Every structure is written in structure tokens, then in C-alpha cells.
């Protein structure tokens, strides 16, 4: 990786420029778009208009998908669908947020899916040791704490082996993939661990507020005594998981765009050697990306427990490649140094909207695979075109 990016003259300016940038103009310094301006100069011609379109293509594509599905799929553009779609996407989104850090630093984390699974199993087992009917606060502190601790531990190991022993992250995290999977199966005894805590499901599947025409607005719990057919008229407003997602997204965005660590991360991914020469502690930054990624995988594992009242070892397996795909669709380069957290959010939304929309429209399942596959390749092709245009 080091050599590949090191020979790329296009990326060098970021690394040299970013580290000394004082906090006063930090937002400019961390903006990866600056690369193009430094490299190509700012000319306002047809070329730069085309470039803007290429850069914003994922957002345009997302908008187009939403328009098409709104017209063709009945029930797509409803409050229920938009909210459940976002809540269902929460786990994928959290994994993708973590993966963005590692990929920006020119690494990759293949273990995140099974680390998430292991965290969900560990968290579920511990929650079953609490007294049944424990309070939400205790559940979040203990269950969430265990899941985060499991994630952080895996991240420290991933980062330490990668950095101290100079093993490529692809191999290290592939090893952790197996280790986390095995430990998870040993802990769970092979079965999904059902969690017997009544407070959990309302937390993971519930909404901040509910509207029912007879009782008005109730906060945090579904109106009491409403059952059967009347349940259909209860409208949930803002899924709890969406709040968590927005907070995590905000924190990640802030770290990447506004902090010194964020600047150093772009420098590391852009050109490791140059970053080191410019005084960036590349080892520390790289180690941190693995810890952030795995810790977020731990959070995703806890969210899985909340939403499904179950801890399952392979719960994150199918989502790992989707998360990496979301990051790439969002414009982050697999070689590191280029990308934004907002891009990842758009990438997650594109995958989620395609999956949901194709089911609603009732398209043959196998076409769905083709659609997602094509979008990923298209993303990279457009990304390349954008770079060539510089």
C-alpha cells in the first residue's frame, strides 16, 4: 500500500499541506477536494462543470432512485417506509462509518462483520445474567459496555499487529475474522442467544414518539391499551435507532472534518511517507482507525441485540461487504486519502433504497443482485472519470 500511494503524485499535496494547517482554517485543510484545486488550478469551464456533476453523481443517483421508486412502488414514499428503512439501515450504516476511517487510512477491516457478531453474542449473554426486567439504563450500560469493550479489544489487536509487525491489514483482519467467528461460536454454543429482557425490543424497534388519534401524542412508549386492529392507526415518529445514527454520524463527521486527527488521517492515507516526514505519528493514527472501526462494529452488535432481541455470531457477515461497498460508492478511495463521511452516508442510502425499492416494486430477486453489483462498479468507474478530468 505504502508504495502504491507513495508513487502517486496527485496525492502528495494533501500530505504536505495538511499537517501544519492550524485549526483556524482546518475545515479547508481537511477537505479532500482541495487536492484537485491544488493540482489542477481553478478554471471555470465546461470541464469543471462536468467534474462537479461527476463528484456529486452519487447524490444525483440517489435522488433519481427515490424519484423512480416513488412513482413505481406503492408505499415507497410513506412515513412508515422511510422510517423503517432508516432504522433497518442503522446496523449497516454504523459498520460503514467505521470502515470509512480504516479505508481512508489506506487500510481495510474484513473482521468488522464477525466482530459485530461476537459483540452481539457477548452482549446478549451478559444481558441474560442481569435480573429479568432490568432498567433501560442498566441494559445500555452493561450490554452496550460489553459490546463496545469486545469491539475495542479486537480493534487494538488488529491495529497492533498491523503496525507493530507490519502485516498487511487485509491479512490481519482476515485472521481476526476467523478468530472472532470462532470465539463467538464457542461463547454462544452454536445457537443464537435469545435475550430475555422485556425493555430491549421497545428500545430497538420503538420510536421517540407515537401519535394516535384517540390518545394524542405519547412520548417513548406506544399508547397504553391499544391492541389489535387499532394498532394500525398508531403512527410512530422518529425511530430510536435513527437518533443514535444521527449522533454517531455527527461525531464521525466532526472527527474527520474538524479535528487534527482527521487531518492526520487524510495525510496518512494520501501518502504515508510524506505524512511521517511532516511529523504525523502515522502509527498512532493508523492504530486509532482500527480501534474506531472495531468499536463501531461493537456498537453495531449491540444495536443488533436491541433490534432483534438476539445475539448471533454471523449477524454481521452479510453486511460487511455491503458496508465496504457503501464506502466505495460514497466516493472513498480504496487506496486511502480521498473520501468523506457524507459520501458514506449517501452510499448506505443508495444500497438501502435499492434493496427496499426493488422489493416494493416486486422485481425478481436475482435482478436485485445485478442492480447492486452494477452500482458498485459504476461508482468506481465514475470516480476514475472524475480523477482523469483533473
Amino acid at each position, binding site marked *: 500500500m505504502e508504495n502504491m500511494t507513495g508513487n502517486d503524485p496527485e496525492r502528495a499535496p494533501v500530505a504536505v499541506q495538511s499537517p501544519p494547517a492550524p485549526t483556524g482554517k482546518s475545515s479547508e485543510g481537511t477537505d479532500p477536494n482541495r487536492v484537485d484545486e491544488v493540482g489542477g488550478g481553478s478554471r471555470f469551464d465546461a470541464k469543471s462543470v462536468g467534474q462537479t456533476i461527476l463528484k456529486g453523481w452519487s447524490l444525483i443517483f440517489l435522488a433519481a432512485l427515490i424519484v423512480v421508486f416513488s412513482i413505481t*412502488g*406503492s*408505499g*415507497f414514499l*410513506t412515513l*412508515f*417506509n422511510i422510517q*423503517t*428503512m432508516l432504522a*433497518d*439501515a442503522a*446496523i*449497516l450504516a454504523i459498520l460503514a462509518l467505521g470502515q470509512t476511517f480504516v479505508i481512508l487510512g489506506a487500510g481495510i477491516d474484513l473482521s468488522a462483520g464477525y466482530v459485530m457478531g461476537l459483540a452481539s453474542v457477548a452482549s446478549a449473554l451478559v444481558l441474560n445474567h442481569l435480573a429479568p426486567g432490568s432498567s433501560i439504563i442498566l441494559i445500555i450500560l452493561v450490554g452496550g459496555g460489553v459490546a463496545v469493550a469486545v469491539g475495542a479489544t479486537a480493534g487494538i489487536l488488529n491495529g497492533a499487529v498491523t503496525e507493530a509487525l507490519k502485516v498487511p491489514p487485509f491479512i490481519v483482519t482476515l485472521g481476526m475474522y476467523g478468530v472472532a467467528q470462532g470465539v463467538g*461460536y464457542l461463547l*454462544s*454454543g*452454536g*445457537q*443464537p442467544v*435469545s435475550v430475555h429482557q422485556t425493555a430491549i*425490543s421497545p428500545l*430497538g*424497534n420503538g420510536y421517540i414518539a407515537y401519535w394516535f388519534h384517540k390518545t394524542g401524542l405519547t412520548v417513548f412508549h406506544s399508547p397504553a391499551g391499544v391492541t389489535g*386492529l387499532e*394498532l*394500525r392507526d398508531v403512527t410512530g415518529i422518529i425511530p430510536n435507532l435513527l437518533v443514535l445514527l444521527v449522533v454517531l454520524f455527527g461525531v464521525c463527521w466532526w472527527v474527520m472534518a474538524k479535528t487534527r486527527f482527521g487531518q492526520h488521517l487524510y495525510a496518512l492515507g494520501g501518502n504515508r511517507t510524506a505524512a511521517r516526514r511532516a511529523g504525523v505519528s502515522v502509527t498512532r493514527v493508523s492504530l486509532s482507525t482500527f480501534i474506531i472501526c472495531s468499536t463501531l462494529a461493537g456498537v453495531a452488535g449491540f444495536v*443488533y441485540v436491541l*433490534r*432483534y*432481541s*438476539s445475539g*448471533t*455470531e*454471523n*449477524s454481521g*457477515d*452479510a*453486511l460487511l461487504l455491503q458496508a465496504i461497498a457503501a464506502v466505495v460508492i460514497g466516493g472513498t478511495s480504496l487506496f486511502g486519502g480521498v473520501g468523506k463521511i457524507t459520501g458514506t452516508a449517501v452510499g448506505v442510502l443508495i444500497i*438501502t433504497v435499492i*434493496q*427496499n*425499492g426493488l*422489493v*416494493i416494486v*416486486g422485481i*425478481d*430477486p*436475482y435482478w*436485485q*443482485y445485478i442492480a*447492486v453489483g452494477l452500482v458498485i462498479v459504476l461508482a468506481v468507474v465514475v470516480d476514475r472519470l472524475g480523477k482523469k478530468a483533473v
Partner: protein
Amino acid sequence: MVLYSPDTYDSLMKEGAEAEAEKLGVKMSITIPQKFDAVLQTSAIDALIAKKVDGIIAAPADGTALIPPLERANDAGIGVVTIDAPIGDGNYESGEVTFPISLVASNNELAGEKGCEALIEEIGGEGKIYIEDVQPGILSSSARREGCEKVIEATGGKVELAGVGYDEETVPKAQSDTAAALQREPDINGVFGTDGYSSQGAAQAVEQAHLTGQVKVVYFDADEEGIELLEKGTVSMVLAQEPKKMGELSVKAMVEALEGKTPEKKISTGVEVITKENVKDPKVAAYIY
């Protein structure tokens, strides 16, 4: 209808369901997630709730994790039938989960018992049996494994369990698991695979160890591969499920319920033991998929 993942078994459930839907004149769409995964199934189910379909037939990848989304469907007034495997403890009369209309599935524990009884008979009532299972937590294949384990236990030590492997839905893993077991315990004389992949891998391992005939293999699922291996003599018997019939019966139960009737809570489909002797019998041939 929301199924597991793309394979022959799923496409047969799909085929059966589509045929029945056409016969009854109902409109049906089918989703098969790219991987066997509860999260992917949940997003499909939520999309169907948003679409306001009348009923959802689901093959649950995880009996616990699929409860919340299917409960959401039920709360929205959508009928729920599970196919091939249950949610909760599988007792929709008085168990953990009672809202689904029906469970349409093979009696998997019985299938495991039936298969292992035949295997024990084949190995002459004593020896060591190795089980290659799919993945921990899949209720259907786990029930077959448990059925088999029960029969082994009932022999009172004459037949021993040599171990259990998990292939994670890949043939190569099943093969390497079984090969390692045969290496470790050369006195194994029976192998039981709990689904198509695990059986296929197990059979290949036995063949490559040149133990064909000495080690008897039970192949679960009567797919083309299984029948071929049966005719070649690599496997001694094939256990046939009826995925197509499950597809049919699940649609039938759903439509009945939507018409206001009450279908049975548990609808069981059969399992047939196919051997080299009866494979040509037309009655048995109907089970082959």
C-alpha cells in the same frame, strides 16, 4: 414471500408457491436475499409492510431475530405464515409466539430420527457416527441433528457419536471437516449430513479417503447430486424433503386464512428415505427434486 438465499431448495419452494398462487389466482412477489441473513430478511419484510401486502410467507433465517419484524407485519394487519422453519419455539398454539397463521415444514426431528435409524441399521447396529451440520442456530438442520443424536443415544452406547462439524453452507468446508474426522477417528462407519451442502461435502470426503462402502453416508435432500451419488454407491440413502409442496401448502394456508378460514397451525410435509433399491419406484421418484 421472503425466502432464505439463492439455492435449489429455495427455488423449489418458490416454484411450488408460484404454481399454487397462479392456480388460486392470487398475486405474489418473492424476495430471496443474497445471503442467509436475518437483517437482509428484515429489510425485505419491512418493505412489504410498507407496500401493504395482505400476507407475508417467510422462511426465517433466525427463529428469534425474525420475531420483531413479523410481529410488526401482524400489527399492521398482515397475515404471517412461516415456511420450512418456525419463529419462537415453533408452537403457534400456545408457545412463545402465537400470531402466525401456520408453520409449513418438514417434521425435521422425525426426519433426523428416520435417517439415523436407517443409517444405524445399515452399519449393522454398532459403530461410530459423525454428523456434518450446516450452521449453529438454524432450527431446521439443528432439529435433524438432534433427532439423529437422540437415536444414537437410544442405542445405549452401541453406536457412538464421533463428533459434529459445521460447514457454514459451503461444500468445501463440509468436505474438510469430514476428512479431518475420518483421519482422527478411523473407526467411523457412518456419516450423516443435515442438508445438501454438508452431505455433498461429507460424501466427497468419504470417496476421496477410498472408504466408499465401508463408511455409509446419509445424504439429506434429494437433489440431483444426491441421487447421482446414490446411484454411484457413494451414499447409502437419500432423505427427501418436499420444498415444492411446502411452497404450495404455504400459499394455500395463507389464502385460506385471508378468506376467513382457519388453517391448521402446524402443517407437516413428509420425509422419504430413498435407497438404491427404491429409487426407480415411481412413488418414490416423485420426491426427487
